[in-house]
């Protein structure tokens, strides 16, 4: 009898605690809008944040960086998401770098070429250089492997190397893993993949770009060229709502670093 009472008391207490904790904290809606490439990062972060703060609802509209910036300017969303830095013409807004997206250029591990310039890479993917021997490698025709239209990695790669719409590909694959295994089994191949996905892969190697290794450190200090910032865009001189501010502070703090890494980006906090 007594034991039963204690159990009941325990559960009652638990219920009260749960009630109190859910009453406290922030509540409200946070609308984010913008870059499709940031879907994974924002997805992971908002999921964790909504778990910790059940009264907050975070929405994400994958419309593209330009639209996201436009939306935050018009006030139709709280935080705009851009997978590039703000342009000088985009005034009245503040950009905060959430993370960096490093894109590794990968080739087969047996290929003797290990160092390319951004120009080389752009020439390879647009079909101006078609043989590895032109770059000091073996006499092998180059086979370019890319990602499907709409992929964030493709968008990032093509915008940094300025090859938008101009890539001549031999294969267009639908996942990072497929690109890595295709490059790993083909000595002619060159491809690109998120930095985080390349680590620990034996069949491939990430080439140096302009003499710089591709690593978290070189992405963070900016010496590795093929990267872009994931930027949070807010209105200048205007307070965010309590919920949006809590979310913003959370994702830009170092607490979120592991989650950002998990989503394949390089944290900066």
């Amino acid at each position: 009898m007594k034991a039963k009472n204690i159990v009941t008391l325990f559960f009652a207490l638990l219920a009260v605690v749960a009630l109190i904790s859910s009453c406290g904290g922030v509540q409200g809606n946070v609308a984010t809008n913008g870059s499709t490439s940031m879907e994974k990062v924002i997805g992971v972060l908002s999921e964790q944040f909504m778990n910790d703060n059940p009264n907050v609802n975070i929405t994400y509209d994958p419309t593209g960086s330009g639209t996201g910036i436009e939306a935050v300017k018009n006030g139709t969303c709280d935080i705009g998401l851009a997978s590039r830095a703000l342009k000088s013409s985009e005034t009245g807004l503040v950009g905060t770098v959430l993370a960096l997206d490093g894109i590794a250029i990968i080739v087969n591990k047996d290929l003797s070429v290990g160092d390319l310039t951004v120009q080389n890479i752009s020439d390879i993917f647009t079909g101006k250089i078609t043989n590895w021997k032109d770059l000091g490698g073996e006499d092998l025709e180059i086979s370019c492997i890319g990602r499907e239209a709409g992929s964030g990695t493709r968008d990032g790669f093509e915008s940094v190397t300025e090859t938008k719409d101009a890539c001549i590909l031999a294969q267009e694959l639908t996942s990072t893993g497929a690109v890595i295994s295709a490059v790993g089994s083909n000595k002619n191949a060159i491809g690109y993949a998120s930095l985080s996905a390349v680590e620990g892969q034996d069949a491939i190697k990430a080439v140096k770009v302009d003499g710089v290794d591709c690593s978290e450190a070189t992405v963070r200090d900016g010496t590795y060229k093929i990267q872009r910032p994931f930027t949070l865009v807010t209105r200048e001189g205007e307070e965010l709502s309590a919920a949006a501010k809590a979310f913003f502070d959370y994702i830009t703090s170092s607490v979120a670093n592991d989650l950002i890494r998990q989503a394949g980006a390089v944290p900066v906090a």
Partner: protein
Amino acid sequence: MKNHKGTVEYFFRLIFLICGIAAVFCVLAISVYLLISGIPAIREIGLKDFLFGPVWKSERNQFGILPFILTSIYGTAGAVILGVPLGILTAVFLAKAAPPRIAEIIHTCVELLAGIPSVVYGLTGMTVLVPFIQKIFNLSSGACLLSAILVLTVMILPYIISVSETALRAVPKEYEEASLALGATKTETWFKISIRAARSGIIASIIQGVGRAIGEAMAIIMVSGNVANMPSIFGSVRFLTTAIVSEMSYAAYGSLQRNALFSIGLVLFLFIMLINGLLRLVSERGSNK
């Protein structure tokens, strides 16, 4: 007692009816959904530009699916050209020529072949076949139409073999005995009597293989390169099915791109319906004879 029996009978009949309706409902729902979601894009792009447009570039809003249609037709035709003789000869061997023991072993293997999931075909194709093709034809990339055709050939083989085999076994013994008694050799009998008598079953098996080949996506997306080129045997190509798979995950909801993907689905659906209609026609003709 009798009344009780009647109730049970009624109850089960109802259950059977519901099960039957469920299948019909699914087909209807899918057809209607495909029509509703597939037509807007076709209307916006224009039927001619959609079906016969040679360029698919979704980032530039160019949605012509001619390369996909041709690739699907070429790929399926290639698989049939390679698979049909191989399949029919195997079926003849199994039904007529093989010693029972060996026939059983081969039969088990064929059944296993049919049971392998298509993603495994794709994976094996990607890691074994593609590098092999690349090496023997000295290409820069082995992911091409030829690889896809080879994978499809192996995938449709079990269908052709097992359906043809059944048809060949059903040929009345008297036909063959009569032929042998007239002095024809066994080979002559098989080719001139058995195959001819089993014709409608064999044709049905081929059509079934075509249906399987044209609807396959998972296996060939991994070996075909998946670039929206006009088909060429050593070129990277994209099929109707793989076109949907490869872009669906990124197509924004309500965008023209997404709608166009549904329209591809509609075209594919019509292809499959055509093939099914053909199959029915052939099997009906076969049973009327």
